[in-house]
């Protein structure tokens, strides 16, 4: 799956995007965040305020219990502050 990071999720993780192959047990957004948080301290820091992290799959907002699939484009970011 393709992961995109924005704002402080991006600056904490230190990259804007990456391709990952998640383990089989990663079935939902929640699973994905749990797994990402184990990849290193910068990921753990970025995902520390877990409930605040917003998720979009293929440009649509989803909740944390939404399923994820290998060909998804999944974006993680803070609450938006435009306008």
């Amino acid at each position, binding site marked *: 799956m393709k992961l*995109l990071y*924005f*704002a*402080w999720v*991006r*600056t904490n993780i230190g990259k804007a995007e990456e391709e990952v192959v998640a383990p089989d047990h990663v079935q939902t957004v929640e699973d994905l965040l749990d797994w990402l948080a184990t990849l290193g301290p910068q990921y753990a820091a970025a995902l520390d305020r877990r409930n605040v992290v917003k998720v*979009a799959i293929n*440009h649509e*907002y989803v909740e944390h219990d939404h399923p994820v699939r290998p060909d998804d484009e999944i*974006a993680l*970011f*803070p*609450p*938006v*502050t*435009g*306008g």
Partner: protein
Amino acid sequence: MIKVQREDFDIGAELAQLTDGNAKVGGLASFVGLVRDLADQGAVSAMTLEHYPGMTERRLAEIEAEARSRWPLEDVLIIHRYGRLEPGDRIVLVATTSAHRQAALESCAFLIDWLKTKAPFWKLEEGTKGAAWVEAKESDDRAAEKWKR
């Protein structure tokens, strides 16, 4: 119409396009958001707006469609800039036209309230103490909430 762009926009020219040649328009409502100078509060000397290309356009088009479904509108315009902006710079323009003024006024307020909580933009403020990501405001959530159905 949706425009996501780095460049500034000309308010007069943009609004003129919404009304010129359409005499069904009785009211034109618009809102422009600008970068405030909060230097006295140790805050903004400039800011950088990041967004999610592709998703931004889709979410803004969805917000436009929602406004058109709720009010009888002649036209809708949303322009949102990204990149580095300085105090006094324009950030966003939303404008609506309708035969009736309440439809124009209400839909204009709706557009900016929804955009604030739904369009994937993030502000990085450069202040005297360094750069910091702007925190989302509860008041913006409440403003969007009042349009929920």
